[in-house]
């Protein structure tokens, strides 16, 4: 089976949120629903040097995340109606006819990918612009990124091109889910972990519907 995935160059992302808007526009998402979200990771403290001077330590960067179309997604076995399935291209999709809008997949996914759409009463999520994929076009988030921080393709091709790292702080360590991601971490990612840096734009990215 083919497995498509995303590449995210966290070191190149400027946090402009164009990908977020492009996704929202292409998929005509309702207020509150964000299939792709740009998180602002921020943390810092002061380090006392031997000379007595205080040195600031700061970690700030952006992380653009949508559904990672995991090889073993947590949402799939949790779904009580078998509405969530993996297709032949490895995409994790929702069958609207089966979905009852119970929101259980939202709790099961550690990345906050499935989101409830109050207008349709259904769970919705990134479908990797499957219609574009069939027309050999890039997903809207990837093609819109002005920093070229996002890429898309078959996982083996992405791994060959960018390496095999799938994680960056503060993404949860979910090796067993095998997220279809390749990530170039930001230079401050390790410091951010050391400083327990937090997502500082939580309200902005939360689905309040």
């Amino acid at each position: 089976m083919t497995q498509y995935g995303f590449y995210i160059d966290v070191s190149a992302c400027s946090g402009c949120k164009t990908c977020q808007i492009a996704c929202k526009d292409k998929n005509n998402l309702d207020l509150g629903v964000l299939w792709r979200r740009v998180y602002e990771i921020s943390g810092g403290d002061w380090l006392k040097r031997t000379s007595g001077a205080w040195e600031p330590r700061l970690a700030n960067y952006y992380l653009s995340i949508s559904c990672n179309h995991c090889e073993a997604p947590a949402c799939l076995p949790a779904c009580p109606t078998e509405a969530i399935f993996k297709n032949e291209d490895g995409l994790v999709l929702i069958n609207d006819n089966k979905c009852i809008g119970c929101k259980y997949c939202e709790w099961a996914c550690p990345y906050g990918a499935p989101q409830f759409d109050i207008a349709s009463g259904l769970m919705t999520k990134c479908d990797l612009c499957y219609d574009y994929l069939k027309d050999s076009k890039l997903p809207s988030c990837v093609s819109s990124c002005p920093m070229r921080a996002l890429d898309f393709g078959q996982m083996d091709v992405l791994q060959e091109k960018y390496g095999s790292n799938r994680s960056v702080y503060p993404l949860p360590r979910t090796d067993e889910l095998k997220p279809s991601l390749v990530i170039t971490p930001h230079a401050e990612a390790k410091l951010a972990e050391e400083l327990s840096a937090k997502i500082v734009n939580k309200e902005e990215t939360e689905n309040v519907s």
Partner: protein
Amino acid sequence: MLVSDYSLIIFTLAIQLSVGLIILFNTFIYWPAFNSRGTIQRMLKSIPLLALAIGIIGVLFSFLHLGHPMKAFKAINHFETSWLSKEIIFLSLYLGFLILFILVTWTTTSWKRIQKVLLDLCSIAGIILIYSMSKLYMLPAQPNWNSVFTFVSFYGSSLLLASPLLLLLITKKGSYSSQRALAVLNAALIIIALILLPVFINFLQQNGIPGQQAMDLLLGSHSLIFFGKILLQIVALILIFRSLFVIRSEITQCRQLTIPISLTFASLLIAQYFGRALFYALALSEGGF
């Protein structure tokens, strides 16, 4: 979270109360001292009916949580892997056995063995239902829920709410010893809940970033609900101790018990509502996504 999840709060509490009522009733009904005034048949008819009514209220509220309530029957489709499917199946079994029991009890008085079997099956389905309900929330993506405390909370709520309610229902009909046993059980459960609170706080403090965020919520924006819950549990404990003082002999006056036990139940019901609201507010994933 606190407002939008009211339907799940009422659903889980109602089902747990209903199951707790049946389990305690099934335990006490065969206790020789339970029905000293010979009113077993009346209790067999009324208490399971109340448990069914509470269960149905819970089910109706669960529909409010769904985007498409009319398709709710599809929720049983993924029994092999989804705890939500298992919950719905065991809920159906529990209510099914309960309805059968009520039908048998209301139509005949001679099928005592069948009555016992049905009440046992209903209790077993109820116990598995609470287990499924707990497992449903014990997700790796939700570290604050993914612990034994979810089991403790759900089974605890079940007995904590059912014991004062059953006590209230038997103030007229039950014996001195069964009233006393239920009051002691309720007091013991409240004390256990209060003792476990610092243990749970310690668990949250050790639970990484989600645990820290949960602590910030409990002591910050949700502190009124958090401390309100503790205060109500203490009030309930004082009231149940007062009732224990009143239940001293067979000549206990019904009126002396009704008011404090009603207040105990009301305090615990509100406390459990607050507690369940906090439970849903603690749905904080590892990275905060």
